[in-house]
């Protein structure tokens, strides 16, 4: 057994020194509940598509919209909670900023839910211009406006968060470049090398800050257009902005969540996660790749310049190299013959890296233009991102939550924890694989009603979805019960 306390801040259950710790725990509890609720929405969609439950299309598309934005929001918030929690060990963060982000996000959520379930907005989470303004008479401009305002509130909250983390990183390290470890990479300088958490936080601060600003711009334009249609924007430009923002934001959630792996796994292996030149180089490449790769969402917009599509394809593949050859490879190396103790926390964190690595395969394949022609906008697309999220990001989050509420003596993956893990993993993996099979069977995405040839897969998916929900519900109950007694 190789649990070690690497320093005084890392003793079991010692969460001293984290500003807004209450806000972080509230984020996790609320997000956990939102994730379970959104999974129930997802189950409803599958039941409806499979013809097992009658849901009017208008309600299906509302539920679909809520499911999408709910999951994206929960992923973003939980990633941010993880980043804040661990970054507080290395830089001086200001507590009220986190609470402001949480408050603004909650206000945004209220607006978003009201827009959907009170005023009928059903534009999908991606609000693809000009659909919010041109619903075909299904919702009023005001419904779309409240949805977009809700997004704006969440975006402002996140921007405050990143301004604060950026400020604190610069205060401590002198510049974002130093915080990203570039002196080590470029000159081999060994002075004051930032730990992995700092490198990751600095990179995400930069790229997600940019993504959110672009998102705010297109949300702003969309809002104005709702009430002054003469103020229009080129639909292709809007699409570029929306997919840039959306891609960057959802990727940021997993690039933040992996910080939990960097910080927690060493406590089990006794091998600190090292900021090497390779590590810094991988994150520097990631900074560039995450910003450049978004054209892989536009490979069927043939009016896009050819070079942009090639960038989308090539950078999609290239993004896999830091992931597989650095994060995943390092994890495997750190685990090897480490005398590792497996409990729910370590099992979920390692599962998260598996989900991220394995999920990249259908993603990278779909980013090839020739493949994208027959896979884009089929269920292959949600197939790959559910892999990233259900088996990747969310597994890391639940792992962090399990670690936060661990017993101080060495627990093992056994009994109830093993059962809940097995139920979740079986359900989750089966569910995402069926999504991929459906996509390969040419089933289009975002259809409220499925054709008879497609519903067999839906029926089987429902079973796996229910298992995954049961597993997550067990994790949530465990967290809430234990967090209530935490010091």
């Amino acid at each position, binding site marked *: 057994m190789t649990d070690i306390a690497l320093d005084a801040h890392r003793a079991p259950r010692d969460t001293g020194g984290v500003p807004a710790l209450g806000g972080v725990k509230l984020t996790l509890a609320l997000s956990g509940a939102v994730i379970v609720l959104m999974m129930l929405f997802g189950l409803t969609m599958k039941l409806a598509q499979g013809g097992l439950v009658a849901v009017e*299309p208008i309600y299906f*598309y509302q539920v679909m919209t809520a499911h999408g934005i709910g999951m994206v929001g929960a992923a973003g918030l939980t990633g941010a909670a993880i980043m804040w929690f661990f970054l507080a060990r290395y830089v001086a963060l200001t507590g009220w900023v986190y609470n402001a982000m949480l408050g603004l996000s909650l206000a945004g959520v209220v607006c978003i839910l009201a827009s959907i379930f009170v005023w009928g907005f059903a*534009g*999908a989470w991606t609000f*693809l211009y*000009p*659909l919010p303004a*041109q619903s*075909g008479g299904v919702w009023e401009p005001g419904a779309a406006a409240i949805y977009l305002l809700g997004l704006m509130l969440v975006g402002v909250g996140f921007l405050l968060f990143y301004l604060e983390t950026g400020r604190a990183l610069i205060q401590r390290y002198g510049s974002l470049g130093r915080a990203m470890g570039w002196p080590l990479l470029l000159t081999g300088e060994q002075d004051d090398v930032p730990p992995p958490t700092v490198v990751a936080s600095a990179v995400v601060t930069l790229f997600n800050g940019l993504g959110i600003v672009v998102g705010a711009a297109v949300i702003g334009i969309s809002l104005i257009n709702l009430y002054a249609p003469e103020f229009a924007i080129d*639909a*292709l430009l809007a*699409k570029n902005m929306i997919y840039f923002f959306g891609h960057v934001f959802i990727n940021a959630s997993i690039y933040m969540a992996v910080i939990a792996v960097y910080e927690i796994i060493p406590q089990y*292996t006794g091998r600190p996660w090292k900021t090497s030149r*390779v590590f810094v180089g991988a994150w520097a490449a990631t900074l560039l790749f995450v910003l450049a790769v978004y054209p892989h969402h536009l490979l*069927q*917009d*043939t*009016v896009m310049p*050819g070079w942009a599509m090639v960038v989308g*394809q*090539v950078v999609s*593949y*290239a993004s*896999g*190299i830091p992931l597989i*050859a*650095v994060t995943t*490879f390092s*994890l*495997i190396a750190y*685990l*090897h*013959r*480490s*005398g*590792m103790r*497996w409990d729910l926390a370590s099992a979920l964190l*390692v599962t998260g890296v*598996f989900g991220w690595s*394995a999920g990249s*395969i259908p993603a990278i*394949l779909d980013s*090839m*233009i020739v*493949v994208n*022609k*027959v*896979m*884009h*906008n089929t269920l292959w697309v949600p197939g790959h991102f559910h892999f990233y999220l259900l088996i990747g990001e969310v597994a890391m989050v639940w792992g962090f939550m399990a670690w936060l509420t661990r017993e101080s003596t060495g627990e093992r993956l056994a009994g109830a924890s093993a059962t809940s893990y097995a139920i979740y993993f079986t359900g989750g993996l089966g569910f995402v694989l069926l999504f991929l*099979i459906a*996509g*390969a069977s*040419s089933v*289009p*995405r*975002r*259809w*409220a009603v499925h054709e008879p*040839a497609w519903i067999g897969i839906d029926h089987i998916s429902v079973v796996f979805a229910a298992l995954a929900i049961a597993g997550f519900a067990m994790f949530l109950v465990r967290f809430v019960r234990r967090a209530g007694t935490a010091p």
Partner: protein
Amino acid sequence: MQGTILFVSLLLIGLVAVVFAASVLASTSHGEPNKQAVEKNRVQLMVALAVIGFVVTYVSLRPWPHEAEASEGVVTVDVTASQWSWELSRKEIPAATPVLFNVQSHDVNHGVGIYDPQGVLLFQTQAMPGVVNRVKYTFREPGAYRVLCMEYCGLAHHGMTDEFKVIQE
């Protein structure tokens, strides 16, 4: 194509799963890692991934997948999308002839997906307001083909379908 991609995906996902499973099994024993060997293996993996990437990129982009120029002998079909129906300038298309689809939308983004008689997606492109997307295709098999909407466009997105025939001339 879809079957091959699914097979390759499942194979590679399976490979990643096997690697992780082996790693979990090897984690419970004790031993010091050979750091030099680890870093050497990492570099080899990076090089291998880069080489595979170059080869796959080259092979998959030649010929350019979106070649869609109008030329002699090419039949043109104009496709216009609106909430929630399709307008096709021709409903009969000759087989074994290059067909150029000019696709646009009256209102919001739609996606024109062309399905063969067996329900397999052959190709697609986006239908957008203010731009014309072009895609060229040669149909080999005569029969009834379908147009399905691939880009969420509102309430009747799932009902936005049409048909055309490919005929042997």
